[in-house]
């Protein structure tokens, strides 16, 4: 850790992991509600648990991105952060807004929450992933602007590298596309059309820029390969990301009332979307093989390589599985979508955050890497979490295929609930895999506290 102000990243990482645990707990509640329908009803109905699960996911990933930015921007720009005090203030504002929102979801019926928070004045609630009340949405915009102001000023007064530039592009893009969550027309088709501008252009557009920048930074630090080569590849990868991802939004415009040509554009370009993820995997392995130094933090290296592979598998392969229009006609809105969602989010964005945290945390605590015994623990948690996500995805894919076969094909299709009863087995198996994931996460947290002889700060 070369600059004092990088320490401001520490609370962000700690909050990120804490919210991550919350997300997994509510995931387990929902997983159990799939098999025992009235579990915790009416105290925590499924829709409330889902809001908390998905919102905690996005909020903890944002905390992770901000922590990563506060860690790497000063180091890239070779200057102190513009205002560490501002960063800490926005940390508490964002944490408070998040906590209040979750309490609001859990304590008050959603309709009352909407009534109380000015939803009648400007209705932006009640849409998937964007359920936050208006004050929270405004709070997110304010925090984002202050955060972006803070790191942009740091880069302006310091060295401008491609990595910090790409990271800024990704983060500014994230803020800009979040503004579409305020647009909620009464025409459902228009509402959905621009809803995807926030959701898709985030996870298959600007978030991939953030993912690329973070991964490139960690790889430079771990492998010691010179910056020119890594940044060159970074640009090629994110060029392919936007070239395929922007029109790739079309694979959400097959069945929501939009014209038929989207089925051709959406299928063709989203079929090409796995290419940048494949290039990222080749890039990661290539850099590690051509490393010029043996970095003591083996766990972070494992996370970096794992990010490439799992992002390609989850977002690339499982995405391609159901992105072509004729296939999507059957899989749209089935458990196949949920399977892709789990592995894509974990493989791409959870893992890159964990890569950053497992690389930066030791540095923030004054050592170049955790003790070997702590790193072994961390590697155990890597494999437990990754393998359990693979199994969750496999079980949900099987559930999805059976659901489609029973509910949407053949002459005597079953009703939704009848089909759900037939695939209960897979939901039980998924829940079991969920507990393995929780075990992995616990090990991950424990690895930060595990004692052992420690290397000096490199």
């Amino acid at each position: 850790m070369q600059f004092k102000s990088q320490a401001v990243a520490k609370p962000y990482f700690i909050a990120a992991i804490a919210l991550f645990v919350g997300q997994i707990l509510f995931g387990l509640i929902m997983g159990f509600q799939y098999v025992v329908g009235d579990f915790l009803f009416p105290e925590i109905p499924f829709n409330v648990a889902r809001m908390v699960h998905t919102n905690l996911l996005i909020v903890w990933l944002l905390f992770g991105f901000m922590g990563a930015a506060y860690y790497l921007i000063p180091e890239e720009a070779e200057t102190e952060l513009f205002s560490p005090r501002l960063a800490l203030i926005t940390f508490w504002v964002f944490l408070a807004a998040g906590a209040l929102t979750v309490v609001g979801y859990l304590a008050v019926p959603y309709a009352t929450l909407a009534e109380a928070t000015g939803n009648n004045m400007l209705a932006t609630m009640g849409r998937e992933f964007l359920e936050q009340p208006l004050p929270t949405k405004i709070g997110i915009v304010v925090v984002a602007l202050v955060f972006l102001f803070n790191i942009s000023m740091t880069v302006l007064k310091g060295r401008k590298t491609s990595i910090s530039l790409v990271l800024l592009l990704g983060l500014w893009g994230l803020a800009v596309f979040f503004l579409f969550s305020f647009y909620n027309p009464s025409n459902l088709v228009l509402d959905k059309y621009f809803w995807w501008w926030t959701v898709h252009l985030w996870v298959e557009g600007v978030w991939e820029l953030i993912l690329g920048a973070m991964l490139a930074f960690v790889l430079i630090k771990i492998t010691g390969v010179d910056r020119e080569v890594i940044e060159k590849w970074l640009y090629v990868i994110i060029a392919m990301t936007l070239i395929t991802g922007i029109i790739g939004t079309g694979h959400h415009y097959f069945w929501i009332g939009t014209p038929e040509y989207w089925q051709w554009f959406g299928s063709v370009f989203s079929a090409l979307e796995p290419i940048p993820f494949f290039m990222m995997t080749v890039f990661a392995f290539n850099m590690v093989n051509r490393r010029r130094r043996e970095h003591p933090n083996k766990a972070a290296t494992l996370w970096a390589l794992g990010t490439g592979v799992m992002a390609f598998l989850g977002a690339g392969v499982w995405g391609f599985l159901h992105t072509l229009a004729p296939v999507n006609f059957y899989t749209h809105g089935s458990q196949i979508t949920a399977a892709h969602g789990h592995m894509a989010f974990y493989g791409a964005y959870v893992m890159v955050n964990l890569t950053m945290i497992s690389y930066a945390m030791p540095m923030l605590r004054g050592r170049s890497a955790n003790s070997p015994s702590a790193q072994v623990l961390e590697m155990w948690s890597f494999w437990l979490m990754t393998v359990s996500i693979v199994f969750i995805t496999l079980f949900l894919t099987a559930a999805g295929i059976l659901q489609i076969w029973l509910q949407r094909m053949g002459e005597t299709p079953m009703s939704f609930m009848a089909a759900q009863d037939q695939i209960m087995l897979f939901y039980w198996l998924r829940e079991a895999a969920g507990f393995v994931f929780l075990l992995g996460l616990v090990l991950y947290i424990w690895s930060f506290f595990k004692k052992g002889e420690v290397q000096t700060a490199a």
Partner: protein
Amino acid sequence: MSETFTKAMARNIFYGGAVFFFLLFLALTFDTVRGLPKRDHRENITDSVVRGKHIWETRNCIGCHTILGEGAYFAPELGNVYKRRGGEFIKAWIKSQPTGAPGRRQMPQFNLTDQELDDIVEFLKWTSEIDTNKWPPNIEG
């Protein structure tokens, strides 16, 4: 790769490609938005439909159901439920929830007034008439 492939050119391709495809995306968006009225019959959006959408959102129906295939996968697709069950069934179903059957998935009781029930049915009726390129594959949704 040797220096035959420069970072400057890669950066130009990134900026060029991003702007190019975003412009193409805006053009397609313009064409879509211009052509939508014929496909979504927006002339049928009455005040009741608008209020119905507001109820759909403020009760967080998307937290369990999918509409036009998007949302949570815990409860049935409602994009074509008006065609599948009809308005009266929908109102009766909403009023009779939760079923209380042990171990079954439960839908909360929203205590909607009759006006609100009519509105939500109007919204689901309008949604079922959108031209979704013949999705879902069958009436089960």
